[in-house]
């Protein structure tokens, strides 16, 4: 590949992996506290739509991002209510949540904008502030500020998980909630916090999809990115560094696929190329190693005593 093509490819890999990384980091909190989140997709859809709605209503993309985060938080709250409070089935709840969020986003989109495509709204600008940095400045300035926010969130998350009492408790509750309860810690508050943080981060990831990469919302824009985030957590062994690596790998396939679609080099139809990122995700999932990093109590309900039969 000629040199002029490498830099744009790297840039687009970073752009495409960012939402998977941010949502994956969110999911890491969720899975670390022992709640499986197949609803990441739904949380991202809520975020993407609410962000556009916020920007449409106020004209400010940053308020849009705030809307997106709050919508993700709300979706997270529903998942937390079902899984943490009600002792529900995590996988089913995640599916329902995805369906619900997709439905609400489509319903509102059609009801407000009259079509499954929103109009163009004010989107986030690129980080022009960084243009002055020598050599790399002209590349760094091309990214949305949300990417930098994502990197920051990843660093903070690493510190939280491995260097704070909250992180210690989070790792403990994912392995054995009963032990954590007997240590005098409120298991449910801990689990709520993990799921809610996840919702907020997925909301931000969704906002990035609609306002950071584009300037509108359309039905099906998340299509599988949430599931990719779930895979990134498993493959990334529940740590921000690993998640970053997996997200970049999955992003690479996505970028290559897009490049091929644009260039038509192989003469393959766009539908066939469209599958590539998903197939890459499946391969990654099937051949991952180190499953023993998995939180032991993942996907297990832990009921409050008052709800026991």
């Amino acid at each position, binding site marked *: 590949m000629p040199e002029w093509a490498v830099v744009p490819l790297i840039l687009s890999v970073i752009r495409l992996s960012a939402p998977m990384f941010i949502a994956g980091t969110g999911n890491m909190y969720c899975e670390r506290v022992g709640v499986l989140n197949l609803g990441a997709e739904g949380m991202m859809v809520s975020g993407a739509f609410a962000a556009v709605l916020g920007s449409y209503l106020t004209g400010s993309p940053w308020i849009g991002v705030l809307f997106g985060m709050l919508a993700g938080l709300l979706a997270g709250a529903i998942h937390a209510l079902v899984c943490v409070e009600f002792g529900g089935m995590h996988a089913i709840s995640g599916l329902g949540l995805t369906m619900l969020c997709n439905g609400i986003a489509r319903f*509102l989109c059609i*009801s407000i904008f009259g079509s499954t495509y929103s109009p163009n709204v004010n989107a986030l600008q690129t980080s022009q502030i960084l243009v002055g940095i020598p050599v790399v400045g002209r590349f760094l300035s091309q990214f949305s500020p949300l990417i930098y926010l994502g990197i920051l969130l990843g660093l903070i998350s690493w510190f939280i998980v491995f260097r704070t009492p909250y992180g210690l408790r989070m790792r403990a509750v994912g392995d054995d909630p009963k032990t954590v309860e007997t240590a005098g810690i409120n298991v449910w508050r801990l689990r709520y916090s993990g799921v809610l943080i996840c919702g907020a981060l997925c909301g931000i990831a969704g906002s990035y999809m609609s306002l950071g990469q584009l300037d509108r919302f359309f039905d099906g824009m998340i299509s599988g990115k949430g599931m990719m985030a779930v895979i990134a957590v498993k493959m990334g062994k529940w740590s921000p560094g690993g998640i970053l690596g997996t997200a970049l790998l999955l992003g690479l396939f996505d970028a290559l696929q897009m490049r091929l679609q644009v260039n038509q080099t192989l003469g393959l139809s766009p539908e066939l190329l469209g599958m590539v990122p998903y197939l890459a995700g499946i391969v990654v999932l099937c051949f991952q190693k180190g499953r023993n990093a998995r939180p032991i109590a993942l996907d297990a309900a832990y009921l409050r005593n008052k709800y026991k039969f």
Partner: protein
Amino acid sequence: MKGTPGSARNPHLRETAVDIAVPFLLLLFSFLFSSIWILMMGKNPLAAYAALLDGAFGSSTAFVNTIKKSIPIAFASFSIIVSMKGNTFNIGAEGQLALGAMGATLAGALIPGLPPLLHIPVCLWAGALFGMAYIAFPTVMHVRRGVDLLVILLLLNNVANYILQYFVLDLFKSDNALVPSSRSILGSAELPYLIGPPHRMTIAILFVLVSAVVLQWYFSKTVAGYEMRAVGLNREAARYAGIPVRRYTGLALFTSGALAGIGGALEVLGNYHCLYTDFSPGFGYDGIPVALLCGSNPILAVIGSIAFGALRNGSLTMQARVGISNEIISVVQGSLILSVASNYIVRYLLNRKKGKEKVHA
């Protein structure tokens, strides 16, 4: 532990009552939840639901259309029920439906010179085979390597969607159609009518009824059905009892894929006679709440599927008459699935009173 005198007279009766009440309560909840969104758009939910009912059952044509819509839903729910009996959860019914439809389209269009009595079964087999082929890889990965089935199937649904588009728009496209569609199947593969025009109800509904009865019979009367249920309810205990657990999990998943594939095939053979990219508005996902609400009983699932067919069918009338996007159906379904996921707490609330009457023996 015995109940004191004066406690619930017949605990079994009460349990049955709870079993029956729960699905209706959950349905009620999801309609109430959806009403909030309808109200937020400044519309009247009662008018909406009235239009929905009218559109679903208001006339004989409406009713027949509801039944038609319920057929793929029923097969999707059978598919999920069978997978649940085998201690897994086939969330890929939507993808298998699409693959099954492709299989049937290929067999229906490419095999000439067969009498209908032979051609139709061949097409159905093709649908079943395609459905099984689709689920083969995830099944092997799940059974052999313990890969998370839900995640892999959810990803594969996206892949199936691309395959469907490729099939309809490129590989097997029709050159002289107004809407992008695949080539049509031959006349010999079209399902005969049970009730002719104007209703045009094909014999597909008979396949639904027969499948439900066969499944029910299999699970309640045969030794293999007993073993599969044992695997589904407690995989480890089944293994300790010497039941070949992996074989049953595999069998359940393959049967599950075949059933969904047949559902997709019937759509092609009975309804469209060719394939569109959006031939399924999410029938495969509709099967999930049906299977969960019906306590994985295939006979009840037929009734549940008709209810969901009614939702699909009536929502179009609702959209036309009250001006509410039929997307609200996804909201109903999503909230329904969420409430099914929390069904433990509903049972807890319903049983709490009963529990208080018991004392230590």
